[in-house]
Each structure stands twice: as C-alpha cells, then as structure tokens.
C-alpha cells in the first residue's frame, strides 16, 4: 500500500498546483506527477499518454492516470511540443507509484515554453500549500 511512506519533495523540479512536476534537462523539459499525487491516487493501474508530436499549452490536459480509486486528468505544467512519452508506463504503470520523479516520468517536451516556468512553485512553496490544505 502507498500509505505510511514519507512524501518526498525534491528541489530539482518545479511544481504545478495540479500536482505535475517539470525538470529541465538542457533544452528539454521532462514532466511527471508528484509523489504526493501518486500517494493520493493510490495504486496506479493505467496511464494514458498522448502521441509524440502534439503541441499543448500550459494547463491543457495531456493524459489520464487511472488508479483503483479514480481516473484523473493530468495537465501540462508548461506548454510545449511533446517530443517523447514514457512507453514503459503502458506495461508497468506502477512505476509512477514507485519512482514518481524518476522512472515514472511521462513526457519530454522540446521545445517548451520557458515563460510558463515562472508560474510554477518551488518545493518549499508546494509543500507548504499542501500542508496548509490550500491545494489538495
């Protein structure tokens, strides 16, 4: 079960209030959902991702994450062109539960809209908003 483990908030990613993270790797942006999000969703059983090549704006839904509790849309933390998706999640969606910030990544964006990064939060702000109940 997902309960009981300490939720992590790494400092090398930026956070959206809808619980996605984005990490920069030279000129590419990598996107996934946060550890808090995977813990709240519970055991993830299905991840639906878009076709590479699509362009999407910040805030637009890019896919669906389904757990035994619920199916939830996931949103673009920054706009950009989807250059790759994590195909491994098709057969092993539980990777998102086990390693949300690493092997559980969902999209690579190239190019991405750097201006959108300014609306995102750092780890401390994201954590404090969750702890205070401002976002859930």
């Amino acid at each position, binding site marked *: *079960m997902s*309960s*009981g483990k300490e939720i992590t908030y790494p400092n090398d990613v930026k956070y959206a209030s809808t619980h996605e993270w984005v990490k920069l790797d030279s000129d590419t942006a990598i996107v996934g959902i946060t550890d808090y999000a995977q813990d709240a969703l*519970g055991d993830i*059983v*299905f991840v639906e991702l878009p076709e590479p090549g699509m362009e999407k704006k910040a805030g637009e839904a890019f896919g669906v994450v*389904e757990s*035994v*509790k619920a199916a939830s849309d996931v949103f673009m933390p920054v706009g950009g062109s989807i250059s790759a998706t994590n195909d491994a999640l098709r057969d092993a969606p539980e990777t998102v539960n086990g390693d949300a910030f690493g092997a559980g990544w969902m999209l690579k964006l190239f190019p991405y809209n750097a201006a959108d990064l300014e609306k995102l939060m750092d780890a401390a702000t994201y954590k404090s908003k969750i702890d205070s109940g401002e976002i*859930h």
Partner: protein
Amino acid sequence: MSIVANKPEPLLYEMSNPGTVGYSLPECDVPMTQLPSDLLRSELNLPEVGEVDVVRHFTRLSQKNYCVDLGIYPLGSCTMKYNPKVNEEAIRLAGFSQVHPMQPAETAQGAMQLMYELQEYLGAISGLPGVTLQPAAGAQGELTGVLVIRAYHLARGDTARSEILIPDSAHGTNPATSAMAGYQVVQVKSDARGNMDSEDLRAKVSNKTAGIMFTNPNTLGLFEEHVRAVNQILHDAGGLVYGDGANLNAIVGVARPGDLGFDVIHSNLHKTFSVPHGGGGPGSGPVMVRPDLAQFLPSPVVAQEGETYVFKNPAHSIGRIKSFWGNFLAIVRAYVYIRSFGKEHLQEIAQDSVLNANYLLALIRDVYDPQVPERVCKHEFVLNGTRFKKEYGVNTLDVAKRIIDYGYYPPTIYFPLIVPECLMIEPTETQSKASLDEFAAALRQIAEEARANPQLLHDAPHDTPVTRLDDVKAAREPVLRYKHL
C-alpha cells in the same frame, strides 16, 4: 444471515460432472441431422450440472447478497432507501403487468392516465411543468436535458455556445453527458464552505456558455448557499441551468428546483421515489423543464384531451431517447410511492432524511472528521480520512472493508474527488433510530480499532467468503471470462 452465507461458493465450471444433464427430452420423431461441422465448436467446455444443482448454486449466491431488506445501505449519493412492498403489489395488477407497448392507446387508458398523472406530480414537485418519463435512468436523463438545452440555443439561432460549466464536486456523469452532447467541459472550483466559488464561476462564464450542470445539495451533502445567485449569473450570460436531481431526496416537497432558478432537472425515480436499484433495477430518470422548453422534450409525451389520454409529439422534439414509454413499471412504483405520501406528507421524506444524516453525523463526529465541520448537512455527509491515514496509517479503503465485518454494506468511498480519503454516508429516511445507533456504534468501534490495531483494518474483511481482494492486480491484469489459470 444464512448458515451457508460465509462459505465460498464454487463456480459452475468447478461443479461440472461430465455426462450430467439438466434436461430430459422426448424421443425425436423426425430424422436426425448433424449440424454442419463448421458450425460446431468443441472448445467451449460448458459446465455439465443437474437442474437442482443449478438452482442451489444460484440460491446460495443470492444468500451472499447484501440488500436494503437486510440492513442499512449507506452508499452516499445513491439514496438506497427501503422499497415499499406495496409498490410491488401495484405493479402486479394485470392492467400494468400485462399491458403491451404496441397495443392501441385507447385500450391502455388506465396505464396512460397513470403516466399523465405522474408527469403532473413530477412537474408540481420540481416546479418545472414540462415532463418526459422516457429516460431509462439518471445519466440518460442528463443527456436528454443537455440535448434540450442544445436544441433551445440552436432554435434561437445561437450556434456559438460550446461550453458547459461543471463544479469540481460533480457526479462523473455530468462531464460525460456534456461531452456526449458535443460540449467542452469547463470546471468550476468549490470554496472552503463547499459552495461553488463565485469568483471562479464569474471568470469562466461567457457567451460561449451553453449552461451549467450542478447538483443541489451537492455531493458534499451541502445546500448550495448561493444557488439563486449562481443561476442568475448563468441566466444573465444567456446560459441555462441543469439540475442533477440525484440528491432530490434532501429537498423533495420542501424546495422546488424551478423556484431556485433551475431550467431543467432530472429525477432518479430509483432514488428519491423508492424504485429498487443496485441490481434490482431497471431505473428511471424523468426530465422536467420550464414551460418554454417543453417543445423540445423527447417524443412522445402523454397529454389529456377531454376524457382521453393520447400520445403527443412535442413541436420541436429532440426525438426518441428510449424505445416505447420508458421503464413503465418503474414509473408505476414511483406513482404509488408519491400517492402513498400525498401532498401533505411528501416533505417528511426530505425532513427525515436530513434529520437522519445529521443525527448519524452527530454520533460520530468526535471520532471522524467532517469535511466542512461548520455546516449542517443535508441528506448525506462527507468525512475526510486524512488524519486516519497520517496518524494510524489506515486509509479509507481499510475502514470501508472493516465495515463489511460488522455486517453492513460500506458507504461510498473516494468520491467526491475533491475530498482526500473521502467516506460519503447517506443513511436515508428509512432507517430507524435504533438502526442508526447500531451503525454509529460500529463506526466508533472501527475508529478505535484503527488507532489500537491498524493491521486488523489492513487485512479486513475477515468474516466473508473471500477476504481482501487484490483489486490492483485485477485492474492491471483483468481476466474477463472463465479459463483454467
């Protein structure tokens, strides 16, 4: 409980005994012919069992069923109330049970009178006098209502409206319905008191807004405090207001949706009006609209001409939504239910359902955490399980599974989506005080177990034919038909 209820029941395949048959045919008196070999299949491996074994198998399975005739069935947002047996007497009257949907209208006048009168009653109860009884259940009622909204805008020559607003606490059918009717869904946030966030609503409404769909009381079990203002905002923008009537039980006979500013609403007869559901269906989801929208309703509706009842097609009908006349026997049950209360007593349904929910909440609120503690709830309430998860490592699924051990059907869990570790309880008005006291005592005991012995909850249920099922494996690797594993 039956003495066999807790034993696992084998599959019919596992009971199969080669050569056993459940029939005995007379000798064939015509020449026998073989079926063409390309039509024969040998891989089906059908079970071979006798008649009495089949009967016992399904009877034993039925005894494992939980139903509202056994005890409280507190599924939030489902209104699992008792289904009065007098309804069943009524539907067995030959004029209702033997009537054929294709027989001439003049020979089915009694059935049509009942339909006409139920249209009138639902119009009066909702304050929205245009009524169709056709939709087969709530979600089909929603689709009907949204198609009526669409027809209304198109009839005005307004083709620019492409969006439906839906609060984030909505039933999942609302966005699904809007998408099916060709609309984009725009989500509206809830505020800390459980109402729609009026700032967010104002920001999202525009001349692209065809309408809004929301439930009142909402899925937090709370009456939308600004319902009139919300509806005014929509009307000022040229949009219409759709009421999801799933929670009508909380206000039936007390407040009329038409008076609150709703333009269209459906009612689940299998919730508010005591028609069985949850395996006992079929359901029924009539739609009520304000007078000027009645021209768009599905065809036909029942009208009265002098002494005669006739089927009429509304002038600009969206067409048929269901074959024949809806789920007719569900309609009969709802009619009987409404007539058993009468106009004077109908409001007691709402009053008692709200009283029961608040009484039950009062019995447990010191050990569970209501989502919006400062407000009086309506017919249901929502608990937030975050503290149980943080302090005891027990999640809401564990609590729900443990409830089964106490002999109850668990409440709705993890809905509405905006409440973490949500537990949603709707007792309905058909529980006695003693029944609520017992259920509350069980919930209190479970809260104590969560603190003292969380493993007991992690492993629950214990007293069932099968214990905790691996729903994750089932979802990831579904096996959808029988095969030897």
